[in-house]
C-alpha cells in the first residue's frame, strides 16, 4: 500500500507547481473573528471561527463537548461537519484543489481546512481557517492555533494541506446557495442535513436550488421527493414529470410518480408509470424490489372511479 501513497505525493507535488490563476483576486476576509485555541483544541476553535463568520454566535468552549475527543487530543472531521449542522448551518465540502479552496475565500467564505504539519509517516494534524491570500508576499493568511493572522508561504501551505488529503469545508446558510456551489455537492449536503434544518430553511433551500438549476434532473428529483414526503402530492407529481421530461428513463422518478398517482386515486396512470419503471430497471438493479412492490400494490387494489381533474393522464 505504501507504494501508492508515495507515488501520489510525487505526482501531486508536481501538479502543485502550476500557477494559480485566481489567487491575485483573493481578498483578505479581515472581519472573520479569531478564537485562540487552548491545549490541543484547534478543532473547536476553527469551527467557532467559521460558525461565527456565518453569523452563528458560539464559543469554542461551547463546541468542545460536540467535537473534542479527549483520548485523541483532537477532533474528527465528520464531527466538525455534524456539529455545523447542529448549529443550523450547512457544511459544504470544498473540492480538493487549490482553485476551489481560494474561490470560496474570494466569494467571502472562510474555509476550515485540515493540515498535516508533520510528515506523512509522523503526521501532526491541525485544523485552521483560510481567510485570505497576500498576493504581494505570496502568503496564505490563516486563523490558526494561537495566531490571529498566521502567514504561510503558498507552497508550504499547499503541501501541508495536500498531506491531509486536501480536506476543506465551508459553513453556509442552507437557504443561500453560494455562487461556487455545484448542484451535486449542494444537494447532497442538503439531503444530509434535512433532519437538522428548519422547515423554513429547507423551503428556501429547495426553492433556491430549483431556481438555480431548473433543468437538473437530480435537483428536480430531490425537490419532488421533498414535496412528496411533505404530502404535497400535486407539486410532487409536477416535479416528477419534469424529471421524466428531461430523463425519460429515470426509473426512480417513474416509480415515485406511480406512488403519487396511486395516492391521488389515479390508478390507471399509476399502473402505467409503475410498469414504465419496471421496464427501465434491470432485475438486479437496486430499485427493482421497491418498483415491484409499487406495481404489486397497485395491481392488487380494486379499480375505482377516478377524479378527472386530478388524473389527467387517465
Amino acid at each position, binding site marked *: 500500500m505504501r*507504494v501508492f501513497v508515495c507515488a501520489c505525493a510525487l505526482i501531486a507535488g508536481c501538479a502543485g507547481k502550476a500557477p494559480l490563476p485566481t489567487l491575485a483576486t483573493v481578498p483578505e476576509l479581515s472581519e472573520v473573528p479569531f478564537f485562540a485555541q487552548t491545549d490541543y483544541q484547534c478543532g473547536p476553535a476553527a469551527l467557532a471561527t467559521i460558525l461565527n463568520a456565518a453569523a452563528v454566535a458560539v464559543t469554542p468552549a461551547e463546541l468542545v463537548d460536540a467535537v473534542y475527543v479527549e483520548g485523541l487530543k483532537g477532533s474528527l472531521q465528520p464531527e466538525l461537519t455534524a456539529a455545523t449542522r447542529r448549529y443550523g448551518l450547512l457544511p459544504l465540502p470544498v473540492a480538493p484543489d487549490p482553485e476551489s479552496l481560494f474561490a470560496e475565500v474570494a466569494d467571502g467564505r472562510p474555509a476550515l481546512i485540515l493540515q498535516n504539519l508533520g510528515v506523512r509517516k509522523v503526521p501532526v494534524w491541525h485544523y485552521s481557517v483560510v481567510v485570505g491570500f497576500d498576493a504581494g508576499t505570496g502568503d496564505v493568511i490563516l486563523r490558526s492555533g494561537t495566531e490571529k493572522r498566521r502567514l504561510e508561504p503558498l507552497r508550504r501551505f499547499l503541501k501541508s494541506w495536500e498531506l491531509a488529503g486536501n480536506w476543506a469545508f465551508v459553513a453556509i446558510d442552507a437557504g443561500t446557495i453560494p455562487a461556487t456551489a455545484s448542484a451535486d455537492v449542494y444537494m447532497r449536503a442538503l439531503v444530509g442535513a*434535512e433532519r437538522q434544518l428548519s422547515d423554513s430553511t429547507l423551503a428556501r433551500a429547495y426553492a433556491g436550488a430549483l431556481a438555480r438549476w431548473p433543468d437538473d434532473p437530480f435537483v428536480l428529483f430531490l425537490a419532488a421527493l421533498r414535496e412528496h414526503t411533505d404530502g404535497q402530492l400535486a407539486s410532487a407529481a409536477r416535479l416528477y414529470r419534469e424529471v421524466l421530461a428531461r430523463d425519460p428513463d429515470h426509473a426512480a422518478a417513474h416509480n*415515485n410518480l406511480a406512488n403519487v398517482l396511486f395516492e*391521488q386515486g389515479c390508478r390507471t396512470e399509476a399502473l402505467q408509470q409503475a410498469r414504465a419503471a419496471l421496464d427501465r430497471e434491470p432485475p438486479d438493479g437496486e*430499485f427493482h424490489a421497491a418498483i415491484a412492490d409499487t406495481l404489486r400494490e397497485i395491481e392488487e387494489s380494486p379499480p375505482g372511479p377516478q377524479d378527472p381533474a386530478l388524473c389527467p393522464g387517465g
Partner: protein
Amino acid sequence: MSRRKIRQLVGVLCCAVSLSCMQTAARADVIGAEQFINTLDRQATLDRIDAVLARSDVQRELERYGVDSAEASERVAALNDQELMLLTDKLEELPAGGSLLAVVGVTFIVILILELVGVIDIFKKI
C-alpha cells in the same frame, strides 16, 4: 340515495384517500433521497472500476491469472458497499488519467482487484 347521504359518503371517501396518502408517503416502495444517492454513488464507483478493467494492460494481467475482464467486472459488481469502498480507497489514489499505473505498474492494481473479488487472498495475512 339522498344528496346529503352522497355528500357524506364523498366526505368519508376523501378522508380515507387523504389518510392513505399519509401512510403511503412513508412506505418502502417510494425511493427515498438517501437510497437514490447511495445507488448513484455505487454506480459511479462501478463505472470507474470498469474503466480500469477495460484497459488492455490490465486485461493482459488479469489473463495471466486466468480471469477474463468481463468476469472480473461481474465479480466487482457483486461486492457489497463496504468491500467496494476498500477497493476504491485504493483507486482513489490513482491520479486522473491513470498515470500511476505507469509508476507502479498494472500488476499491483490487478492483484488488488483479484484480492478483493476473492480470486486470490495474498493480503489476508496483513
